[in-house]
Protein backbone atom coordinates (compact mmCIF):
# COMPACT_ATOMS: atom_id res chain seq x y z
CA UNK A 1 0.00 0.00 0.00
CA UNK A 2 2.74 2.37 1.00
CA UNK A 3 4.68 1.50 -2.14
CA UNK A 4 1.64 2.24 -4.26
CA UNK A 5 1.13 5.69 -2.71
CA UNK A 6 4.80 6.48 -3.25
CA UNK A 7 4.41 5.46 -6.87
CA UNK A 8 1.40 7.77 -7.25
CA UNK A 9 3.35 10.59 -5.66
CA UNK A 10 6.20 10.06 -8.09
CA UNK A 11 3.83 10.02 -11.04
CA UNK A 12 2.09 13.16 -9.82
CA UNK A 13 5.44 14.87 -9.34
CA UNK A 14 6.58 13.81 -12.80
CA UNK A 15 3.35 15.08 -14.35
CA UNK A 16 3.69 18.38 -12.53
CA UNK A 17 7.26 18.76 -13.70
CA UNK A 18 6.25 17.85 -17.24
CA UNK A 19 3.36 20.31 -17.20
CA UNK A 20 5.59 23.03 -15.84
CA UNK A 21 8.20 22.33 -18.47
CA UNK A 22 5.55 22.35 -21.18
CA UNK A 23 4.34 25.73 -19.97
CA UNK A 24 7.89 27.05 -19.96
CA UNK A 25 8.74 25.68 -23.38
CA UNK A 26 7.08 28.41 -25.52
CA UNK A 27 8.70 31.09 -23.42
CA UNK A 28 12.07 29.40 -23.79
CA UNK A 29 11.62 29.48 -27.55
CA UNK A 30 11.11 33.24 -27.35
CA UNK A 31 14.34 33.55 -25.40
CA UNK A 32 16.21 31.34 -27.84
CA UNK A 33 14.88 33.38 -30.73
CA UNK A 34 15.96 36.68 -29.18
CA UNK A 35 19.35 35.22 -28.45
CA UNK A 36 19.70 33.98 -32.03
CA UNK A 37 18.66 37.32 -33.52
CA UNK A 38 21.21 39.23 -31.50
CA UNK A 39 24.10 36.80 -31.08
CA UNK A 40 24.28 34.99 -34.43
CA UNK A 41 25.81 36.15 -37.68
CA UNK A 42 23.33 36.11 -40.51
CA UNK A 43 22.53 37.56 -43.90
CA UNK A 44 18.94 37.37 -45.06
CA UNK A 45 16.40 38.80 -47.43
CA UNK A 46 12.84 39.13 -46.29
CA UNK A 47 9.55 40.64 -47.30
CA UNK A 48 7.77 43.01 -45.01
CA UNK A 49 4.01 43.16 -45.48
CA UNK A 50 1.83 45.73 -43.86
CA UNK A 51 -1.47 47.24 -44.88
CA UNK A 52 -1.34 45.86 -48.40
CA UNK A 53 2.19 47.00 -49.10
CA UNK A 54 5.04 44.61 -49.62
CA UNK A 55 8.65 45.69 -49.38
CA UNK A 56 11.74 43.57 -49.74
CA UNK A 57 14.63 44.22 -47.41
CA UNK A 58 17.98 42.74 -46.62
CA UNK A 59 19.42 42.38 -43.17
CA UNK A 60 23.04 41.57 -42.41
CA UNK A 61 23.89 41.05 -38.77
CA UNK A 62 27.22 40.32 -37.16
CA UNK A 63 28.14 39.83 -33.56
CA UNK A 64 31.88 39.96 -33.15
CA UNK A 65 32.99 39.59 -29.57
CA UNK A 66 29.89 41.31 -28.34
CA UNK A 67 30.10 44.19 -30.79
CA UNK A 68 27.05 44.24 -33.00
CA UNK A 69 27.25 45.45 -36.56
CA UNK A 70 24.08 45.41 -38.58
CA UNK A 71 22.85 46.70 -41.90
CA UNK A 72 19.21 46.86 -42.84
CA UNK A 73 18.53 48.03 -46.37
CA UNK A 74 15.45 48.54 -48.46
CA UNK A 75 15.89 46.68 -51.74
CA UNK A 76 12.97 47.94 -53.75
CA UNK A 77 11.55 50.98 -52.07
CA UNK A 78 12.88 54.15 -50.58
CA UNK A 79 16.50 53.05 -50.65
CA UNK A 80 16.77 53.84 -46.97
CA UNK A 81 19.40 52.06 -44.92
CA UNK A 82 20.17 51.62 -41.27
CA UNK A 83 23.72 50.75 -40.33
CA UNK A 84 24.64 50.03 -36.77
CA UNK A 85 28.22 49.89 -35.65
CA UNK A 86 28.51 49.24 -31.97
CA UNK A 87 26.72 52.07 -30.25
CA UNK A 88 26.32 54.18 -33.35
CA UNK A 89 23.33 53.91 -35.61
CA UNK A 90 23.36 55.72 -38.96
CA UNK A 91 20.08 56.19 -40.75
CA UNK A 92 20.48 56.95 -44.45
CA UNK A 93 17.45 58.71 -45.88
CA UNK A 94 18.12 59.30 -49.59
CA UNK A 95 14.57 60.55 -50.08
CA UNK A 96 15.36 63.35 -47.66
CA UNK A 97 19.01 63.63 -48.64
CA UNK A 98 19.78 63.30 -44.98
CA UNK A 99 21.79 61.00 -42.75
CA UNK A 100 20.92 60.82 -39.08
CA UNK A 101 23.67 59.50 -36.85
CA UNK A 102 22.77 58.59 -33.33
CA UNK A 103 25.54 57.69 -30.95
CA UNK A 104 24.93 56.51 -27.48
CA UNK A 105 27.20 56.69 -24.52
CA UNK A 106 27.54 53.40 -22.74
CA UNK A 107 29.13 50.07 -23.26
CA UNK A 108 29.35 48.55 -26.67
CA UNK A 109 26.97 45.73 -27.24
CA UNK A 110 24.37 47.28 -24.97
CA UNK A 111 21.87 46.37 -27.64
CA UNK A 112 22.07 42.81 -26.46
CA UNK A 113 20.83 43.73 -23.03
CA UNK A 114 18.46 46.61 -23.69
CA UNK A 115 15.41 44.79 -24.93
CA UNK A 116 12.62 43.91 -22.52
CA UNK A 117 12.57 40.57 -20.81
CA UNK A 118 9.47 38.47 -20.62
CA UNK A 119 8.86 37.44 -17.02
CA UNK A 120 6.12 36.15 -14.76
CA UNK A 121 4.48 39.57 -14.58
CA UNK A 122 4.40 39.77 -18.35
CA UNK A 123 2.74 36.38 -18.57
CA UNK A 124 -0.36 37.82 -16.94
CA UNK A 125 -1.00 39.96 -19.98
CA UNK A 126 -0.30 37.46 -22.73
CA UNK A 127 -1.29 33.92 -23.44
CA UNK A 128 1.74 32.11 -24.81
CA UNK A 129 1.38 28.68 -26.29
CA UNK A 130 3.01 26.47 -28.81
CA UNK A 131 0.97 25.41 -31.79
CA UNK A 132 1.57 22.28 -33.80
CA UNK A 133 5.06 22.19 -35.31
CA UNK A 134 5.13 22.65 -39.03
CA UNK A 135 7.54 22.78 -41.92
CA UNK A 136 8.40 26.00 -43.65
CA UNK A 137 10.34 25.48 -46.85
CA UNK A 138 11.50 22.08 -45.67
CA UNK A 139 12.68 23.42 -42.35
CA UNK A 140 11.20 22.15 -39.13
CA UNK A 141 9.70 25.09 -37.32
CA UNK A 142 8.16 25.57 -33.92
CA UNK A 143 5.13 27.83 -34.01
CA UNK A 144 4.64 30.05 -31.00
CA UNK A 145 1.49 32.11 -30.55
CA UNK A 146 1.56 35.08 -28.21
CA UNK A 147 -1.94 36.39 -27.70
CA UNK A 148 -2.65 39.60 -25.80
CA UNK A 149 -5.29 39.47 -23.12
CA UNK A 150 -6.49 43.02 -23.70
CA UNK A 151 -6.54 45.80 -26.27
CA UNK A 152 -3.46 47.60 -25.06
CA UNK A 153 -0.96 45.42 -26.89
CA UNK A 154 -0.43 43.33 -29.99
CA UNK A 155 0.23 39.63 -30.30
CA UNK A 156 2.61 37.56 -32.36
CA UNK A 157 2.77 34.33 -34.25
CA UNK A 158 6.31 33.15 -34.75
CA UNK A 159 7.65 30.36 -36.94
CA UNK A 160 10.99 29.56 -35.33
CA UNK A 161 13.53 27.35 -37.03
CA UNK A 162 14.01 24.34 -34.79
CA UNK A 163 17.73 23.94 -35.27
CA UNK A 164 18.85 27.58 -35.30
CA UNK A 165 16.06 29.36 -33.37
CA UNK A 166 15.90 31.98 -36.09
CA UNK A 167 12.40 33.27 -36.81
CA UNK A 168 11.68 32.43 -40.44
CA UNK A 169 8.31 34.05 -40.39
CA UNK A 170 6.63 36.42 -37.95
CA UNK A 171 3.16 37.87 -37.81
CA UNK A 172 1.99 40.73 -35.70
CA UNK A 173 -1.65 40.36 -34.77
CA UNK A 174 -4.22 42.57 -33.13
CA UNK A 175 -6.29 41.49 -30.15
CA UNK A 176 -8.73 39.74 -32.46
CA UNK A 177 -5.96 37.70 -34.05
CA UNK A 178 -6.00 39.55 -37.35
CA UNK A 179 -2.62 39.81 -39.03
CA UNK A 180 -1.53 43.42 -39.34
CA UNK A 181 2.13 42.96 -40.18
CA UNK A 182 4.17 40.07 -41.50
CA UNK A 183 7.80 39.34 -42.16
CA UNK A 184 8.89 36.28 -44.13
CA UNK A 185 12.46 35.41 -44.96
CA UNK A 186 13.03 34.40 -48.56
CA UNK A 187 16.68 33.63 -47.97
CA UNK A 188 18.70 33.32 -44.83
CA UNK A 189 22.32 32.41 -44.44
CA UNK A 190 24.10 31.86 -41.16
CA UNK A 191 27.74 32.67 -41.50
CA UNK A 192 30.70 32.16 -39.24
CA UNK A 193 32.21 35.41 -40.48
CA UNK A 194 30.88 38.41 -42.35
CA UNK A 195 33.35 40.87 -43.85
CA UNK A 196 33.30 44.56 -43.05
CA UNK A 197 32.51 45.34 -46.69
CA UNK A 198 29.03 43.94 -46.20
CA UNK A 199 28.22 46.83 -43.90
CA UNK A 200 29.07 49.64 -46.30
CA UNK A 201 26.07 51.71 -47.39
CA UNK A 202 25.03 51.60 -51.01
CA UNK A 203 23.62 55.09 -50.75
CA UNK A 204 25.76 57.80 -52.36
CA UNK A 205 25.68 60.59 -49.82
CA UNK A 206 27.26 63.42 -51.79
CA UNK A 207 25.58 66.64 -50.77
CA UNK A 208 23.58 64.97 -48.03
CA UNK A 209 22.90 66.71 -44.76
CA UNK A 210 24.49 64.92 -41.83
CA UNK A 211 22.82 65.30 -38.48
CA UNK A 212 24.57 63.91 -35.45
CA UNK A 213 23.74 63.88 -31.82
CA UNK A 214 26.16 64.53 -29.04
CA UNK A 215 26.79 61.28 -27.20
CA UNK A 216 28.70 62.92 -24.37
CA UNK A 217 27.18 62.41 -20.95
CA UNK A 218 25.02 65.34 -20.02
CA UNK A 219 26.27 67.77 -17.43
CA UNK A 220 24.21 69.34 -14.68
CA UNK A 221 20.62 68.63 -15.44
CA UNK A 222 18.82 71.42 -17.27
CA UNK A 223 15.26 72.42 -16.52
CA UNK A 224 13.83 69.63 -18.62
CA UNK A 225 15.34 66.45 -17.29
CA UNK A 226 14.05 62.96 -17.38
CA UNK A 227 13.89 62.87 -13.60
CA UNK A 228 11.20 65.51 -13.62
CA UNK A 229 8.84 63.50 -15.77
CA UNK A 230 6.83 60.44 -15.03
CA UNK A 231 3.50 58.85 -15.87
CA UNK A 232 0.59 59.03 -13.50
CA UNK A 233 -1.37 56.12 -14.89
CA UNK A 234 -0.30 53.39 -17.24
CA UNK A 235 -2.14 50.64 -19.06
CA UNK A 236 -2.14 47.41 -17.04
CA UNK A 237 1.22 45.65 -16.94
CA UNK A 238 3.31 48.54 -18.20
CA UNK A 239 6.10 49.79 -15.99
CA UNK A 240 8.85 52.32 -16.45
CA UNK A 241 12.23 50.71 -17.01
CA UNK A 242 14.41 53.52 -18.29
CA UNK A 243 14.77 57.20 -17.60
CA UNK A 244 17.37 59.07 -19.54
CA UNK A 245 18.07 62.32 -21.29
CA UNK A 246 19.56 62.42 -24.75
CA UNK A 247 20.23 64.85 -27.52
CA UNK A 248 18.67 63.94 -30.83
CA UNK A 249 20.56 64.36 -34.08
CA UNK A 250 20.15 67.92 -35.31
CA UNK A 251 18.86 69.18 -31.97
CA UNK A 252 20.55 71.32 -29.32
CA UNK A 253 18.64 70.58 -26.17
CA UNK A 254 18.24 67.17 -24.61
CA UNK A 255 14.91 65.44 -24.56
CA UNK A 256 13.75 63.33 -21.67
CA UNK A 257 13.38 59.72 -22.75
CA UNK A 258 11.22 57.40 -20.67
CA UNK A 259 10.69 53.76 -21.60
CA UNK A 260 7.71 51.75 -20.50
CA UNK A 261 7.33 48.04 -21.13
CA UNK A 262 5.14 45.12 -20.25
CA UNK A 263 8.00 42.72 -20.93
CA UNK A 264 7.21 42.31 -24.60
CA UNK A 265 5.85 45.56 -25.98
CA UNK A 266 7.61 48.79 -25.23
CA UNK A 267 6.73 52.44 -25.52
CA UNK A 268 9.14 55.36 -25.48
CA UNK A 269 8.04 58.77 -24.35
CA UNK A 270 10.05 61.79 -25.42
CA UNK A 271 9.56 65.11 -23.68
CA UNK A 272 11.10 68.07 -25.44
CA UNK A 273 12.61 70.99 -23.67
CA UNK A 274 10.57 74.11 -23.47
CA UNK A 275 13.51 76.11 -24.73
CA UNK A 276 13.59 74.23 -28.03
CA UNK A 277 12.90 76.64 -30.86
CA UNK A 278 9.88 75.45 -32.77
CA UNK A 279 9.44 76.85 -36.23
CA UNK A 280 5.91 77.88 -37.27
CA UNK A 281 5.65 74.93 -39.66
CA UNK A 282 6.72 72.59 -36.91
CA UNK A 283 4.15 73.60 -34.38
CA UNK A 284 3.08 70.41 -32.67
CA UNK A 285 -0.25 68.99 -33.67
CA UNK A 286 -1.83 66.57 -31.28
CA UNK A 287 -2.64 63.30 -32.92
CA UNK A 288 -1.62 59.81 -33.88
CA UNK A 289 0.91 58.87 -36.54
CA UNK A 290 1.84 55.39 -37.63
CA UNK A 291 5.07 53.77 -38.64
CA UNK A 292 3.97 50.43 -39.92
CA UNK A 293 2.04 48.81 -37.15
CA UNK A 294 3.77 50.95 -34.55
CA UNK A 295 2.08 54.05 -33.30
CA UNK A 296 3.15 57.51 -32.33
CA UNK A 297 1.13 60.09 -30.48
CA UNK A 298 2.18 63.65 -29.90
CA UNK A 299 0.63 66.19 -27.59
CA UNK A 300 1.61 69.20 -25.53
CA UNK A 301 1.74 69.04 -21.75
CA UNK A 302 2.61 72.04 -19.68
CA UNK A 303 4.20 73.69 -22.70
CA UNK A 304 6.36 70.68 -23.54
CA UNK A 305 5.88 68.55 -26.59
CA UNK A 306 5.36 64.98 -25.47
CA UNK A 307 5.60 62.16 -28.00
CA UNK A 308 5.02 58.48 -27.36
CA UNK A 309 6.24 55.86 -29.83
CA UNK A 310 5.77 52.13 -29.54
CA UNK A 311 4.83 48.85 -31.13
CA UNK A 312 1.39 49.01 -29.57
CA UNK A 313 -2.10 50.06 -30.69
CA UNK A 314 -2.73 53.80 -31.13
CA UNK A 315 -4.87 53.96 -28.00
CA UNK A 316 -1.95 52.77 -25.86
CA UNK A 317 0.50 55.47 -26.95
CA UNK A 318 -2.28 58.01 -26.55
CA UNK A 319 -2.99 56.86 -23.01
CA UNK A 320 0.65 56.82 -21.98
CA UNK A 321 1.55 60.15 -23.54
CA UNK A 322 -1.48 61.80 -22.03
CA UNK A 323 -0.64 60.56 -18.55
CA UNK A 324 2.87 61.98 -18.52
CA UNK A 325 3.30 64.67 -15.98
CA UNK A 326 5.88 66.90 -14.40
CA UNK A 327 6.56 65.16 -11.14
CA UNK A 328 9.17 66.54 -8.83
CA UNK A 329 7.33 64.80 -6.04
CA UNK A 330 8.38 61.37 -7.24
CA UNK A 331 11.97 62.13 -8.07
CA UNK A 332 13.17 59.31 -5.94
CA UNK A 333 10.67 56.76 -7.19
CA UNK A 334 12.82 55.32 -9.93
CA UNK A 335 16.55 55.23 -10.45
CA UNK A 336 17.95 56.94 -13.50
CA UNK A 337 18.30 54.81 -16.58
CA UNK A 338 21.41 54.14 -18.50
Amino acid sequence: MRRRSERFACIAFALAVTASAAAEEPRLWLERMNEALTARNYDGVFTHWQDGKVEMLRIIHRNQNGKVTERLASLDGSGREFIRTGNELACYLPDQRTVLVESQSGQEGSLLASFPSFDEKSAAFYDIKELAPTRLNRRKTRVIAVTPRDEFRYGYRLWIDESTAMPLKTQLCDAQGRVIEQVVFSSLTLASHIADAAFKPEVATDGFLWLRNDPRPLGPEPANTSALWSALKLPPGFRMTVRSAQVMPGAHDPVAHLVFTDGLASVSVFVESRSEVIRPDQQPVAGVANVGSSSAFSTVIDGHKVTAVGEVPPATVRVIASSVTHSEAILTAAPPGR
Partner: protein
Amino acid sequence: MSEELDSQLSAMFDDELPQGECELLARRLSRDAVLQARWGRYAAIGAAVRGGDVRLSGVVARKVHAALSAEALEARTAPIVAARAATRAGAWRRTFAGVAVAAGVAAVSILWLHGSLSPESAPLMARTSGAAATPSAGTAASYVVPQPGEPRPTVLPASELANYVVAHSEFSTPVSRRNLLSAFMASESATAAPPPAESVADPNQHADAAP
Protein backbone atom coordinates in the same frame (compact mmCIF):
# COMPACT_ATOMS: atom_id res chain seq x y z
CA MET B 1 -9.97 48.68 -40.24
CA SER B 2 -7.44 50.99 -41.77
CA GLU B 3 -5.02 52.79 -39.52
CA GLU B 4 -6.33 56.11 -40.75
CA LEU B 5 -9.85 55.18 -39.82
CA ASP B 6 -8.62 53.92 -36.48
CA SER B 7 -6.75 57.15 -35.94
CA GLN B 8 -9.80 59.19 -36.88
CA LEU B 9 -11.94 57.23 -34.48
CA SER B 10 -9.43 57.78 -31.72
CA ALA B 11 -9.33 61.51 -32.45
CA MET B 12 -13.09 61.65 -32.54
CA PHE B 13 -13.29 60.08 -29.12
CA ASP B 14 -11.11 62.85 -27.80
CA ASP B 15 -13.05 65.49 -29.68
CA GLU B 16 -10.01 66.36 -31.75
CA LEU B 17 -11.51 65.50 -35.13
CA PRO B 18 -12.66 68.39 -37.35
CA GLN B 19 -16.43 68.75 -37.41
CA GLY B 20 -16.84 67.74 -41.03
CA GLU B 21 -14.88 64.53 -40.54
CA CYS B 22 -16.63 63.88 -37.27
CA GLU B 23 -20.07 63.95 -38.87
CA LEU B 24 -19.05 61.65 -41.67
CA LEU B 25 -17.39 59.24 -39.30
CA ALA B 26 -20.40 59.30 -37.00
CA ARG B 27 -22.59 58.31 -39.93
CA ARG B 28 -20.38 55.37 -40.63
CA LEU B 29 -20.33 54.53 -36.97
CA SER B 30 -24.08 54.26 -37.00
CA ARG B 31 -24.06 51.40 -39.50
CA ASP B 32 -20.71 49.71 -39.07
CA ALA B 33 -20.70 47.04 -36.40
CA VAL B 34 -16.92 46.67 -36.42
CA LEU B 35 -16.49 50.38 -35.93
CA GLN B 36 -19.03 50.36 -33.13
CA ALA B 37 -17.09 47.61 -31.39
CA ARG B 38 -13.90 49.63 -31.73
CA TRP B 39 -15.64 52.67 -30.33
CA GLY B 40 -16.78 50.61 -27.38
CA ARG B 41 -13.23 49.47 -26.74
CA TYR B 42 -11.97 53.04 -26.71
CA ALA B 43 -14.60 53.81 -24.13
CA ALA B 44 -13.53 50.81 -22.07
CA ILE B 45 -9.87 51.74 -22.33
CA GLY B 46 -10.62 55.28 -21.30
CA ALA B 47 -12.59 54.05 -18.36
CA ALA B 48 -9.87 51.63 -17.33
CA VAL B 49 -7.23 54.33 -17.38
CA ARG B 50 -9.33 56.83 -15.54
CA GLY B 51 -10.40 54.15 -13.13
CA GLY B 52 -13.90 55.44 -13.38
CA ASP B 53 -16.89 55.59 -15.61
CA VAL B 54 -17.00 56.14 -19.34
CA ARG B 55 -17.19 59.80 -20.14
CA LEU B 56 -17.60 61.26 -23.56
CA SER B 57 -17.25 64.84 -24.58
CA GLY B 58 -20.66 66.42 -24.81
CA VAL B 59 -19.81 67.89 -28.19
CA VAL B 60 -18.85 64.52 -29.59
CA ALA B 61 -21.88 62.88 -28.07
CA ARG B 62 -24.15 65.44 -29.69
CA LYS B 63 -22.52 64.95 -33.08
CA VAL B 64 -22.86 61.21 -32.87
CA HIS B 65 -26.45 61.49 -31.72
CA ALA B 66 -27.29 63.89 -34.54
CA ALA B 67 -25.71 61.60 -37.09
CA LEU B 68 -27.52 58.59 -35.71
CA SER B 69 -30.82 60.42 -35.80
CA ALA B 70 -30.28 61.47 -39.39
CA GLU B 71 -29.32 57.93 -40.26
CA ALA B 72 -32.48 56.58 -38.71
CA LEU B 73 -34.53 59.02 -40.74
CA GLU B 74 -32.79 57.97 -43.91
CA ALA B 75 -33.48 54.36 -43.09
CA ARG B 76 -37.18 55.01 -42.89
CA THR B 77 -37.36 56.86 -46.19
CA ALA B 78 -35.05 54.81 -48.35
CA PRO B 79 -33.44 51.44 -47.96
CA ILE B 80 -29.76 51.45 -47.51
CA VAL B 81 -27.99 49.25 -49.94
CA ALA B 82 -25.01 47.84 -48.20
CA ALA B 83 -22.27 46.62 -50.40
CA ARG B 84 -20.08 43.90 -49.08
CA ALA B 85 -16.43 43.58 -49.04
CA ALA B 86 -15.77 40.35 -50.78
CA THR B 87 -12.18 40.42 -51.66
CA ARG B 88 -10.29 37.77 -49.86
CA ALA B 89 -7.17 36.22 -50.98
CA GLY B 90 -7.45 32.63 -51.97
CA ALA B 91 -4.93 30.13 -50.93
CA TRP B 92 -1.46 31.39 -50.35
CA ARG B 93 0.62 31.12 -53.41
CA ARG B 94 3.83 29.53 -52.58
CA THR B 95 6.51 28.85 -55.07
CA PHE B 96 9.54 27.30 -53.66
CA ALA B 97 12.43 27.66 -56.02
CA GLY B 98 15.20 26.19 -54.04
CA VAL B 99 16.14 23.94 -51.26
CA ALA B 100 18.05 24.48 -48.10
CA VAL B 101 21.73 24.22 -48.68
CA ALA B 102 24.02 23.04 -45.96
CA ALA B 103 27.41 24.30 -46.98
CA GLY B 104 28.83 23.53 -43.59
CA VAL B 105 32.15 25.30 -43.70
CA ALA B 106 31.79 29.05 -43.81
CA ALA B 107 28.11 29.61 -44.11
CA VAL B 108 24.88 27.73 -43.98
CA SER B 109 22.03 28.88 -46.13
CA ILE B 110 19.12 27.62 -44.17
CA LEU B 111 16.39 28.99 -46.32
CA TRP B 112 15.62 29.91 -49.89
CA LEU B 113 12.13 30.88 -50.77
CA HIS B 114 10.93 32.41 -53.96
CA GLY B 115 7.94 34.64 -53.70
CA SER B 116 6.25 35.81 -50.58
CA LEU B 117 3.66 34.64 -48.20
CA SER B 118 0.99 37.15 -47.53
CA PRO B 119 -1.49 36.93 -44.71
CA GLU B 120 -4.86 35.45 -45.45
CA SER B 121 -6.46 38.76 -44.75
CA ALA B 122 -5.12 40.42 -47.85
CA PRO B 123 -3.79 39.45 -51.22
CA LEU B 124 -0.17 39.80 -52.03
CA MET B 125 0.32 42.96 -54.02
CA ALA B 126 3.29 44.23 -55.87
CA ARG B 127 4.52 47.27 -54.08
CA THR B 128 3.98 50.50 -55.87
CA SER B 129 4.58 53.89 -54.47
CA GLY B 130 1.74 54.79 -52.20
CA ALA B 131 -0.10 51.56 -52.87
CA ALA B 132 -2.71 50.76 -50.31
CA ALA B 133 -5.00 47.89 -49.65
CA THR B 134 -7.81 47.61 -52.13
CA PRO B 135 -10.82 49.25 -50.56
CA SER B 136 -13.88 47.14 -50.17
CA ALA B 137 -16.50 47.51 -52.85
CA GLY B 138 -19.09 50.08 -51.96
CA THR B 139 -17.17 51.40 -49.01
CA ALA B 140 -15.37 54.67 -49.08
CA ALA B 141 -11.69 54.26 -48.39
CA SER B 142 -11.51 57.32 -46.24
CA TYR B 143 -13.86 59.71 -44.56
CA VAL B 144 -11.44 62.60 -44.54
CA VAL B 145 -13.04 65.75 -45.87
CA PRO B 146 -10.93 66.86 -48.83
CA GLN B 147 -9.32 70.22 -48.31
CA PRO B 148 -7.79 71.28 -51.61
CA GLY B 149 -4.67 73.30 -51.29
CA GLU B 150 -4.45 72.81 -47.57
CA PRO B 151 -2.35 69.79 -46.63
CA ARG B 152 -3.30 67.99 -43.49
CA PRO B 153 -0.94 68.99 -40.72
CA THR B 154 1.54 66.34 -39.80
CA VAL B 155 1.70 65.18 -36.24
CA LEU B 156 5.46 65.15 -36.32
CA PRO B 157 8.01 66.28 -38.87
CA ALA B 158 9.39 63.22 -40.62
CA SER B 159 12.94 63.84 -39.45
CA GLU B 160 11.78 64.14 -35.86
CA LEU B 161 9.72 60.99 -36.13
CA ALA B 162 12.77 59.25 -37.58
CA ASN B 163 14.82 60.31 -34.58
CA TYR B 164 12.25 59.00 -32.19
CA VAL B 165 11.73 55.74 -34.06
CA VAL B 166 15.45 55.09 -34.06
CA ALA B 167 15.86 55.98 -30.40
CA HIS B 168 12.90 53.85 -29.42
CA SER B 169 14.05 50.86 -31.43
CA GLU B 170 16.95 50.44 -29.03
CA PHE B 171 14.50 49.34 -26.37
CA SER B 172 12.36 47.00 -28.43
CA THR B 173 12.65 43.26 -28.68
CA PRO B 174 14.76 42.13 -31.65
CA VAL B 175 11.68 41.18 -33.66
CA SER B 176 9.91 44.44 -32.87
CA ARG B 177 13.03 46.41 -33.65
CA ARG B 178 13.40 44.79 -37.03
CA ASN B 179 9.69 45.30 -37.79
CA LEU B 180 9.79 48.91 -36.69
CA LEU B 181 12.83 49.81 -38.74
CA SER B 182 11.52 47.84 -41.72
CA ALA B 183 8.24 49.69 -41.55
CA PHE B 184 10.11 52.96 -41.37
CA MET B 185 11.96 51.99 -44.53
CA ALA B 186 8.69 51.44 -46.30
CA SER B 187 6.95 54.52 -44.96
CA GLU B 188 6.17 57.43 -47.18
CA SER B 189 8.58 60.31 -47.06
CA ALA B 190 6.60 63.11 -48.62
CA THR B 191 6.02 64.78 -45.30
CA ALA B 192 9.70 65.31 -44.70
CA ALA B 193 10.36 68.63 -43.09
CA PRO B 194 13.27 70.73 -44.24
CA PRO B 195 16.30 70.47 -41.99
CA PRO B 196 16.93 73.03 -39.28
CA ALA B 197 18.36 76.22 -40.66
CA GLU B 198 21.40 76.11 -38.45
CA SER B 199 22.47 72.68 -39.66
CA VAL B 200 25.02 72.50 -42.38
CA ALA B 201 25.91 69.84 -44.86
CA ASP B 202 29.08 68.03 -44.06
CA PRO B 203 29.82 65.38 -46.63
CA ASN B 204 33.20 64.78 -45.07
CA GLN B 205 31.50 63.04 -42.21
CA HIS B 206 30.66 60.17 -44.46
CA ALA B 207 33.93 58.51 -43.72
CA ASP B 208 33.32 58.90 -40.02
CA ALA B 209 30.09 57.03 -40.12
CA ALA B 210 31.18 54.16 -42.27
CA PRO B 211 32.06 51.09 -40.28
